[in-house]
């Protein structure tokens, strides 16, 4: 009888590089073998394409942020579970102004960002923090691949983006970081999302992934060469990767992640994100309000309990914390 096989996709980002290491070091294979399954790990460069592929059913698991999990698979009727909460952005996402130094100065500017992404959400929160709204700026959709180059031109005076682009842009003259995700800690969360149905049917898949992840975490935290490996794989080097890690709150210990998921803050965060998404039409044309999609957290369900499409499930991480994998 053939082994059950599963596919996971990820794209290049500081918090997801462990998947690359897990794949090339054989850790994932080791854990898959332990649970008698096959896991194929695929790198997709285009982040959105990776989520689309997951939503369309081509992959069983995919690394993405909490906001994209809500607006793409969940809004598309794909019941998804956040299996691993790997980290949250703690300065990795930032709003940067050229020459100006304070977030209030953004008023009236054109802001280049990847529209409808977490950068857009960050901008909304930044504007919120000083009593401005999106009407006070003009948003210009700019692909992340071109962000650094675009910032080099005179027309671009404000951007909202993520790392490593943030570091590259801050290295350019006259750039000032006026708002970053450390001011909204725990709101931009990097997840590993799996199809709920698949997880229910094959708990071994969840266990293998979580087991592998925390073994990688242990190595990553303790071994500089592992971090260097990840840095190079992301097209950078150790120093640059370390500086990105510095603004990322990694949950190296499963217990920390479990605790984070259990906190009521998470439900509030997801509520904010749902509001934001609804305002921008991201929950689909059929959504009458922000509560249209139910989000299940240990602290309770936000929104429509009859239409739960995104679930934060700490059980598997708990198993890791309890060393039961």
């Amino acid at each position: 009888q053939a082994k059950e096989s599963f596919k996971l996709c990820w794209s290049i980002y500081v918090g997801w590089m462990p998947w690359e290491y897990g794949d090339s070091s054989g850790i994932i294979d080791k854990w898959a073998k332990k649970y008698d399954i096959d896991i194929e790990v695929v790198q997709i460069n285009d982040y959105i394409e990776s989520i689309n592929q997951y939503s369309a059913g081509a992959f069983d698991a995919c690394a993405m942020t909490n906001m994209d999990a809500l607006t793409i698979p969940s809004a598309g009727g794909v019941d998804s579970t956040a299996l691993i909460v790997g980290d949250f952005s703690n300065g990795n996402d930032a709003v940067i102004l050229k020459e100006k130094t304070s977030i209030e100065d953004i008023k009236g500017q054109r802001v280049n960002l990847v529209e409808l992404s977490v950068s857009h959400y960050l901008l909304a929160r930044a504007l919120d923090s000083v009593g401005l709204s999106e009407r006070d700026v003009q948003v210009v959709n700019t692909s992340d691949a071109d962000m650094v180059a675009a910032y080099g031109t005179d027309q671009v005076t404000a951007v909202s983006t993520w790392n490593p682009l943030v570091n590259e842009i801050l290295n350019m003259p006259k750039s000032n970081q006026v708002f970053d995700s450390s001011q909204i800690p725990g709101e931009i969360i990097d997840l590993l999302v799996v199809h709920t149905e698949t997880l229910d049917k094959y708990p071994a898949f969840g266990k293998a992934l979580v087991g592998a992840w925390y073994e990688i975490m242990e190595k990553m935290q303790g071994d500089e060469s592992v971090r260097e490996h990840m840095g190079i794989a992301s097209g950078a080097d150790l120093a640059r990767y370390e500086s990105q890690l510095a603004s990322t709150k990694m949950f190296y210990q499963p217990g920390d992640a479990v605790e984070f998921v259990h906190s009521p803050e998470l439900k509030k965060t997801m509520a904010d994100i749902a509001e934001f998404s609804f305002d921008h039409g991201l929950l689909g044309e059929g959504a009458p309000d922000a509560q249209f999609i139910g989000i299940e957290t240990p602290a309770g369900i936000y929104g429509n309990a009859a239409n739960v499409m995104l679930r934060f499930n700490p059980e598997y991480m708990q198993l890791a914390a309890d060393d039961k994998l």
Partner: protein
Amino acid sequence: MKRLINRQPSSVTRAFLGILPLVLALLVYQWGSTVRKAENPQDKLLPGFVEIHDAMERMALTPSKRTGELLMWEDTKSSLKRLVSGVAIAAAIGLTVGLLTGAIPLFGASLTPVITVISLIPPMALLPILFIVFGIGEVSKVVLIVIGVAPFLIRDLYQRTCELPREQLVKSMTLGANSGQIIFRVLLPQILPRLFASVRLSLGAAWLFLIASEAVASTDGLGYRIFLVRRYMSMDVILPYVAWITLLAFLIDCLLQQGSKRLFPWYHAAK
């Protein structure tokens, strides 16, 4: 029974045969959509025709909540403006450079190698330099189209200019023409219809570059919309947009063909 290669379909059969594959493609799509919907009613990859129709109505007939505009028409307007300016500039450059390099050997010798090199460079990879030189506004989008299309036009029109019968040049000289007069009165008017043909050939590439440039940085346009809604996989918007682009491409092609036939009857009749 005639040989297969001699059997000509009647005009009715021809129309039927021509439509058949298109209808089949639609049926296959419908089937695929139904299958996926049966699995997940909210599936977005292959939306049903009703959903596509709704999305179209939303994009084309309902004013946008945010700006009060009919999005699809605004997108079309912006994209066409870019496409037309880009192609027009590329055509002007292609015509001028192609004609001069083809007509004047000294020009040809100095420019043909560098044009060959330029035509082989993949322009998308040099976007950063483009931004610095042309900024990130409308100009750079138009420039990307120009860079993508002009080398082809130059090379094609150079070729066509060289192909004009040498006899005509000799004849012009025996009529007392100088170089400028030959270029203006003999070569240029005969190259113009060929320019139309080359532009038609290059339109596919122009659309590609337009869509790519709108993905880079913009606030409207058909390519922008496609990339934006890709963020939540609204194939119900993407598919009709793609169909609309295809239709526009087809119409522009027809327009150019008809225009050329109107303007240059002697060219089309002589062929």
